[in-house]
Each structure stands twice: as C-alpha cells, then as structure tokens.
C-alpha cells in the first residue's frame, strides 16, 4: 500500500473493571480502503469501533484517527467520521429531505450546500421523487442505502459501518456494496463490521477478532491461502472455533 494511514492503532487496551474487551490491538487502515472487521458477538468489535469513533476512551495505547489522537481530540475525530449502525438510524417520522437536512445541519454543513448534495444524492440513488416521502413509507433496502448516503453526506475521511446490511435481502445487499465501492473510489475509507461472510470477501483487507484480540489480518485471498480454506467463512470458523476442527 502506498497510500496514507487514516487509522493507526498501537497497543490498544480497553478494560472494563477486570474484563479486557480489547487486548493489545495493533493495526493500520489506509486511505480509500475497505477494511472488514470480523468477529463473533462479544469479541470486542463494538468496543473497538466506539474507541475509534471517539465514544470511548482507551485504557492505554495509541489511537490515531483521521490524524487526531483519540485520547486528546475525540471531538475532532467525530467531525471527520461518518457512522451508520445496525439499527436503522434515520428518523421514521421525518421525510427524506428533512433527515438529510437534520444530519447535514448537525455536521455543520451550510444549507445551500446541503440542498445541492441532497439533489446529487437523490439523483444518484434514483430517488428524485422520494424527497418528500416519510422514511417510514420506504422499503428497508432503500432506507439502508439512504442511511449510508446520509452518513457520508459531510464527506468524512472515514465511515464506520456497524453491520449495515442486517436484515436486508441479497439483491439490496449487493446494491448496498456498490455504494460502498463508489464511496471508497472517491477516497472515503470504509470500516465495516459484518456477519455475512460473503461480504467479507468484498473487502480489501479483513481482520478477525476473537476474545478481544486480533487473530488474523490480511487480504481475503491471503487469509484463504494461509488457512488453506476455500472461503472466508471457513477461515473464520477455523479461527473462532479451533477445537472443533
């Protein structure tokens, strides 16, 4: 990789009392990369994402996101990242454009700019006629795509996607990933957690967490070679459940 690091994590430890949620994590993420973050439930993914997005303070270690130290400048980090979580994050009782206006406003974008970007966005998603529809009237696949577009409305350096495609049908998921590729090609770094192993194959690089540690990190092809597996799913099973094989 020749491009610049946008996330750098060195010896990250996060403890809750005696429980170690993140045990000495080390990894870098590069600009424009699609970085897959895999792990079973309770492996420590959510904690790591919360630290990276400035919601939690690390117990020790160095974390730099978008050029800012996560310990000192969590507020600056918040301005340069986008976030979309598993639960659907737009307001159902507001219209499409009201939602966009709200999030744009929260991120301090000027009204005129928001309007321009809203038009672009709706055009790109072929949504033009939906601007004044309430979110609650849209199908889930559309909502999800819209939520992603809103998460990158303020043109963040990095966007964190926490299981963005939960509950969406395969076709909509495929379309959703097209949006992710498009964002990445525009230079936005995508940090994504997922339960769908086929989605892991779409990532540039994949890290797999287990019990608070990163146990594997490489390109999907390399990982498959290393573990002599035919798919990431197999790799994941071998790592997460080593005793059963």
């Amino acid at each position, binding site marked *: 990789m020749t491009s610049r690091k946008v996330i750098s994590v060195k010896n990250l430890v996060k403890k809750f009392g005696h429980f170690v949620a993140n045990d000495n994590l080390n990894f870098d993420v590069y600009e424009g990369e699609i970085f897959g973050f895999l792990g079973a439930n309770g492996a420590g993914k959510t904690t790591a994402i919360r630290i990276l997005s400035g*919601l939690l303070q690390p117990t020790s270690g160095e974390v730099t996101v978008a050029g800012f130290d996560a310990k000192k400048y969590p507020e600056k980090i918040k301005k340069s990242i986008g976030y979309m979580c598993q*639960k659907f994050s737009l307001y159902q009782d507001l219209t499409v454009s009201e939602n966009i206006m709200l999030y744009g*406003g929260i991120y301090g974008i000027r009204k005129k700019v928001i309007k321009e970007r809203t038009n672009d966005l709706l055009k790109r998603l072929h949504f033009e006629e939906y601007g004044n529809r309430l979110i609650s009237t849209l199908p889930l696949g559309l909502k999800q795509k819209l939520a992603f577009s809103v998460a990158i409305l303020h043109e963040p350096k990095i966007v964190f996607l926490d299981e963005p495609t939960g509950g969406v049908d395969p076709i909509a998921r495929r379309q959703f990933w097209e949006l992710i590729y498009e964002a990445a090609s525009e230079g936005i770094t995508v940090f994504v957690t997922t339960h769908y192993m086929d989605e892991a194959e779409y990532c540039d690089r994949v890290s797999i967490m287990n019990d608070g540690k990163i146990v594997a990190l490489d390109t999907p092809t390399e990982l498959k070679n290393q573990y002599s597996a035919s798919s990431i799913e197999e790799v994941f099973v071998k790592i997460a459940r080593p005793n059963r094989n």
Partner: protein
Amino acid sequence: MKRFIGFVKKEFLHIFRDFRTLIILFGIPTAQILIFGFVVSTEIKEADIAFLDLSKDEVTQKISEKFCSSGFFRRTDNLYSYNDIDEVLKSGKAKAVVIFGENFGRDLTSNGKASISIVADGSEPNTATFITNYASAIINDFNREFVPDGSTDKFLVQSEVSMFYNPELKGHFMFVPGVIAYILILICALMTSITITREKEFGTMEVLLVSPLKPIQIIVGKVVPYFILSFVNVIVILLLSRLVFDLPVKGSLLLLLAESMLYILMSLSLGLFISTVSKTMQQAIFISLVGLLLPTIVLSGFIFPIENMPKIYNIVTLILPPRYFIVIIKNIMIKGTGFLYIWKETLILIVMTAIFIGLSVKKFKIRLE
C-alpha cells in the same frame, strides 16, 4: 449553535407530526381542566330549599331573603307546619328545610340568642354537607351584621376557617392547582422519558452520540421543545380557569410563572432520570404512569388533605414534588401571598431538580462506559 437549533427543530417536527403526542400535550390538560371544573363539581348552585317560618317577623324575613339572594339557594316552598317537612324532603322538592322556631324573633331581641334549625336531605351526603356549610356561613354572615361585636356560636368559628380564602367555597379553587401540578409532572416526565428512550430504542441515539453534537446538547435539545410547550400549557390552563371558571390569580402572575418554570424543569429532569433507568419506551411509560399518576392524584394533597392521612402516608408525600408545587400555587393564586411564604417549597423543588439532573448525568456516563 446552528447545529443545536436544527436539532431542536427536528424535535418539534416529531411532536407536531405525531397526533398522539399532540393529544397528550394539549388535549389532555384542556380536557382535565374542563372535566374537573364541570363534572366533579364540588359546589352547589341554587339548591332548592324550603322555609318553615313560625316566627314570621322582620328578622326571619331578612334571613330568608339573605339565603335566597346568595345565589346558592332557591326558595321552592313555604311550609306552615313541622309535619310538612318530611313530605317536602321525600318528594325531592327541597334538599333542605330552614326552620325558624316560634320564639325566634323574641329570643333574639330579648336574649340576643336564637337558633335556626336546618334539616337537610341526608341521602345525598355531599350535597347535604355543602348545604349545611353554606347555610351556616350565611347565618354567620348575618350574625356579624346583626351583632357586630362578635358572636357566640361555636359553629361560626368553625366555618370561618374553611371559608376565609374561598368565601364562595368554589370547587375550582381546590382543583386548578392540583390539575396544574399533576398534568405538568405527568406530561413533562412522560414525554421526556419517551422521547429519549425512543432514540435509544431506534438506534438514532448512537448516531447522535457519534456526531459532533455534545451529549449535553442532545439532552437539552430534546428537552427544550417540551419545556416551551409545557409552559404554553400552564398559560392555557390559567387562561381556561380565568375565562371559564372565573378564577383569577390573586398574587403575582410573574412569580407564578417563574415557579411553574421551575416545576417544569424539575419534571423534565425527572423524566430524564426515568429515561436513564429504562431501556425501552414501554418501561418509561410504565414508570411514568404508575409511578407518578396515582401517587400524585392520591397523595399530593390534590384531592385528599395531607393532614388527614395516616402518618406513614404523610411521610411518603414528602418525596412527591407535586405536594410542594400545589402549596406554591395555592399560595400565589388563591391567597395572593408572596415569595416569602413559599421559599421553603421553592428550595425543595430546586434541590429535587439538582438531584435528578445529577443522578441522570451519573447514569448516563455509566451507560456510555
């Protein structure tokens, strides 16, 4: 600041777009005031009474005129014998009979003392009580005119206390402060806890927390609209009680509004606290309704006097904010007293607000960890 305003705007949109929220915010208070005012009427107007005047002199004439001109009573019949009393009460023609004995006039002029008997229809205990109370009040009044240097009857002293601030025994005087107190705490606490747990439940809270908005901005932004609307509510209730029930604010309106703001703030922070301890909207609604509605109505002194409660309940009422606010409003609205008489209650409300906010902040931080 611009971010913040956009956020507040969105909260208003939530409110105005949801019919149910609007009903709770404005429909219920208005309905409550009108229901309590008209249906749960605790006063009487033009009750039918009959007179049995065996003395037939100038004084008895005066007294019965006083009865009828008071607006509370209407003469339906003049009786001529004790035997008619049973008949007139049974037929329902009169709710009570006022009896002047044969020697009434003579006794009064010679001894300075005479007694009137009032026989009321006890099958309607409430009405009967009111009628006798009103009647004794009227007699009391007459006594004062007749014997200016004071009176001898025990009855008079008793009724004087309950009538002092409410000479017409207006029922609205009792319930308007109570309705304001319980409507505000219920709506503020309920709506705040719902609106915040809703964001938690829908996952939008997480997105907001990751955004550049500070947690304090999020909380304040969610609470501000309810603060404003609740304040509008106070004004609506006061206007309704003025226009519909003719109940003025005797004391300082400014003080009343300021105290209302404090009380709204207290209720909002209580709602905030409820939202930090409940995970779902249902839980929040349950806590707000069960935990607040019943105790407020039954124990805050709104309907039942606190002084008459058994000691243990009396102690329980000490932790109920409405209890203090009711005292505050009654003082300002009805007695017209100033801040000096209610500073203790005000202080207690301030302390309660601080406690709820403190607890919420603490809880909120723990949850983030």
